[in-house]
């Protein structure tokens, strides 16, 4: 079982041009900035938006192929869709929400309800069966939405921002349960998110979508080691520069040079973890290389660390402890000296 999709589609000003391949039992996570086309891609796969060109195949069955004038409407694709905010039908009970797909596919009322009841029990929310969706918490609503999508036994499961509607407190718990539920589903799983933690936690493979195109694809560890766009670098928390490798240094496209331990000749990326950036009040003594000055453009606390954004000849983000902030009395707008070690910079071909 597998999904093979060559997607060319337009939605408003967005031109989507992305190839997606996914195998059964695999969770592929689509990440990307707002407006990159993630939701549009899911809608195209579900048949809610037409392809302008390309081809979508699920388990060898062609769902859509404009060249061959073939297009299955959404109701005839074996696809489960968990929408952002879940979109549960407000006028139906929780049980009837889950039974809806089975009823639509011709099951008798009793049989559909019995099966729906089983799904609710499996998800641990059977006690809400006769309630209206509006009384549910975010986590419960997500389970109902998932049960509703899974009840029709789809071969492809699409989840659009399944955790975005939850408050931070509930998120970790629901994410763990979602991962377990996804693990029990044996079809293809495609999840859209803008949250890097969520992406790394759920993904077998990550697909980075930027401006309608696939910017990078790989396992979470590949991605965090070698980001290939500023978006993904920021996502995994790395500094990323693009430039020309010259053996022992990189001439950056944005201006300036950086000494490195080894750089292949040609177009390269240079990545550096913010922890490897040191800040000084005065020019550092000793090693005179890879030192420059800049102005502090922003300070952001995050989990016991402070990220310091420095604008200068080479823009960089440093990560320091709150103690260091106090010691150096770092204040926005002030001048600061930056130093990095050549051995900490990871360089790889672009």
């Amino acid at each position, binding site marked *: 079982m597998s999904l093979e999709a060559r997607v060319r589609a337009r939605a408003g000003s967005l031109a989507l041009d992305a190839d997606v391949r996914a195998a059964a039992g695999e969770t592929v996570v689509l990440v990307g900035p707002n407006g990159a086309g993630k939701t549009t891609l899911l809608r195209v796969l579900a048949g*809610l938006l037409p392809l302008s060109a390309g081809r979508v195949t699920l388990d060898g069955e062609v769902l859509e192929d404009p060249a061959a004038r073939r297009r299955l*409407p959404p109701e005839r694709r074996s696809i489960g869709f968990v929408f952002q905010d879940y979109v549960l039908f407000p006028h139906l009970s929780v049980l009837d929400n889950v039974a809806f797909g089975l009823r639509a596919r011709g099951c008798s009322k009793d049989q559909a309800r019995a099966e729906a009841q089983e799904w609710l029990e499996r998800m641990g929310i059977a006690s809400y069966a006769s309630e209206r969706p509006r009384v549910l918490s975010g986590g419960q609503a997500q389970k109902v939405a998932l049960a509703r999508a899974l009840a029709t036994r789809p071969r492809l499961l699409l989840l659009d921002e399944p955790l975005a509607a939850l408050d931070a407190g509930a998120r970790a718990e629901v994410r763990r349960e979602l991962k377990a539920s996804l693990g029990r589903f044996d079809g293809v799983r495609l999840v859209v998110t803008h949250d890097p933690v969520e992406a790394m936690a759920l993904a077998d493979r990550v697909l980075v979508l930027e401006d309608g195109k696939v910017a990078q694809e790989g396992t979470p560890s590949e991605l965090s080691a070698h980001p290939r766009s500023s978006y993904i670098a920021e996502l995994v928390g790395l500094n990323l520069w693009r430039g020309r490798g010259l053996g022992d240094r990189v001439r950056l496209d944005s201006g300036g040079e950086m000494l490195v331990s080894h750089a292949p000749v040609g177009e390269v990326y240079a990545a550096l973890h913010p922890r490897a950036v040191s800040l000084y009040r005065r020019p550092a003594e000793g090693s005179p290389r890879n030192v420059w000055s800049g102005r502090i453009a922003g300070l952001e606390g995050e989990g016991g660390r402070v990220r310091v954004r420095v604008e200068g000849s080479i823009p960089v983000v440093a990560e320091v402890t709150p103690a260091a902030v106090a010691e150096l009395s770092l204040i926005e707008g002030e001048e600061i000296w930056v130093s990095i070690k050549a051995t900490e910079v990871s360089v790889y071909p672009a």
Partner: protein
Amino acid sequence: MRRPPRALVLLAALAASFFAVPLAALAWRAPWASLPEVLTTEVVGSALRISLVSSLAASALSAFLGLPLAWVLARVPFPGRSVLRALVTLPLVLPPVVGGVALLLALGRLGLVGRALESFFGVTLFGTLPGVIVAETFVAMPFLVLTVEGALKGLDPRYEDAAATLGASRGLVFWKITLPLAAPSVAAGAVLAWARALGEFGATITFAGNLPGETQTMPIAVYTALLRDVDAAIVLSLVLVAVSLLVLVTLRERWAPQA
């Protein structure tokens, strides 16, 4: 709850009295002694019956035809949609008498369509209850169409998308999702249309005539009574007001209980 701002309450009271005072004036001027006598006349009985039957039928017909129209306007993009929308609002701005004349030119026995209606089906609308219903529907349907179209546009289209991905055909989506979600506004639109139909005068008297027992509705009976004596007209107006208040209050309590 915090105390509401005084200025708002004052203006609201002013608005409320704007509706209440004319009604009170009618009640004050009414010759109550002659009420039983007027109410039991055959003319009033038949006018009341014609008004209720025709306005309920007009409201039902508005819903039957107006709902699909509202759906098309809200959901199907096509060239000329804004022209069609303007066309639907036309009966709202058109003086009803002009609407009546237009209907006469279209559906009258010698009219554009009326000619065919008569020669093929032997149907004439002038002077008949169906004629009254047609005239009332003409002026009432826009209220339903506009109300329902607004509600459909406000409805998250993803409910319909979700139903489609669950395997529901377009028809099933409409019946099981769109219609139930739009039901409160369909009801509101139908009530508005009914109220408009009940008070309809100009289009009806022009298109269907003023035939007691056949096309003479309450508003037309009020007009005709005004030709005889004002007191009878006031009594009839009060009856019309009482009936509509009764129905509107009942419906509001049943369909919008928390309002």
